[in-house]
């Protein structure tokens, strides 16, 4: 494996940034495709491990990009990937939000919202599917994934408890990689 240059990492995440329709969750499969399938920078198990650590920390749900950069190129990598993930979409939002204020509530905004929602749904379901496969080893890990998924449907339950429960089951040796 040849380590990617910082420029390459930045461009990769810059493109992913403007493709993040409906938020950061929609582009997790694309990150996995680039990092694991195409470039073989890490295994799918390592990828889902980084995703898990990102989930366990507070903040916007794009921290997986910082962790991929960190794994590839240390602190500079983390900063470059974070910047790549934030800059294009933030610039776009900044300009479009100003434009929309000037022209008022355009029907296109509503059309975009309604029209992209199904695409986001499909992509988030694909994220769940890919991550489950990457984390899964036998029926026990899949059972844990399914149980956590069902428990999130209960409102008011802090996801941190679910992560802690999963970690504990791992520590006890019930779920293995």
């Amino acid at each position, binding site marked *: 494996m040849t380590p990617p240059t910082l420029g390459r990492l930045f461009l990769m995440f810059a493109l992913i940034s403007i493709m993040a329709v409906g938020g950061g969750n929609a582009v997790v499969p694309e990150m996995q495709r680039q990092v694991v399938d195409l470039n073989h920078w890490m295994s799918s198990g390592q990828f889902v491990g980084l995703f898990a650590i990102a989930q366990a920390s507070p*903040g916007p749900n794009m921290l997986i990009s910082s962790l991929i950069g960190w794994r590839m190129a240390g602190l500079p990598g983390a900063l470059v990937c974070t910047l790549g993930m934030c800059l294009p979409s933030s610039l776009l939002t900044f300009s479009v939000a100003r434009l929309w204020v000037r022209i008022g509530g355009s029907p296109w905004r509503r059309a975009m919202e*309604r029209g992209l929602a199904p695409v986001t*749904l499909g992509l*988030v379901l694909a994220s769940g599917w890919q991550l489950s496969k990457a984390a899964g080893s036998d029926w026990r890990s899949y059972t844990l994934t399914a149980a956590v998924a069902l428990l999130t449907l209960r409102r008011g339950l802090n*996801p941190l408890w679910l*992560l802690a429960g*999963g970690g504990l089951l791992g520590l006890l040796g019930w779920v293995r990689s």
Partner: protein
Amino acid sequence: MEEPFRNPAVSCGELFLGFLLVGVRGFGGVMPWARRMLVDERRWLDDRQFTQILSLAQPLPGPNSLNLAVVVGDRFQGLRGSLSALTGLLLAPICIVLTLATLFDRFGQAGPLHRLLPGLSSAAAGLMVGMGLRLLAGMEREAWVCALALIAFLSVAWLRLSLVLVLLVLAPVGIAFGHGRAREAK
């Protein structure tokens, strides 16, 4: 028509600190905490303004909470406000996540801790599946919606197509459908 509200009382420093607090507290979703800080605690925005800004930030690409910070910062202090809010929101989480990852690297490979990550990973995957299920439950029951979602899912999860390709086809189709339906509804 929405009026840009410039409130000189909210400085760049306050934006930075306000969003710093949101970042630190934002476990499992930043948006509820952003709302709490902006509307309930600091009263920089009222409910209507928050919803207005959210409806701007949400359909645009990019992490939703970052988009929200960009728009809120801009409304109060222009470009410098956006940068202050963004930096505040990202600073603490990035330090925390890098610390966690370093700790895992150092202590999570050997000993009993190496068993932690597999369990954590399966649970994290479950959180994502749950998010998908919640979106699914809230979706409009219409043929075009189901078809688009299914095509997006299959082309990414099964065919492993490039997302650029998938979006270049599906985004215009979706927006066209959304536009058509919006006109019918009038």
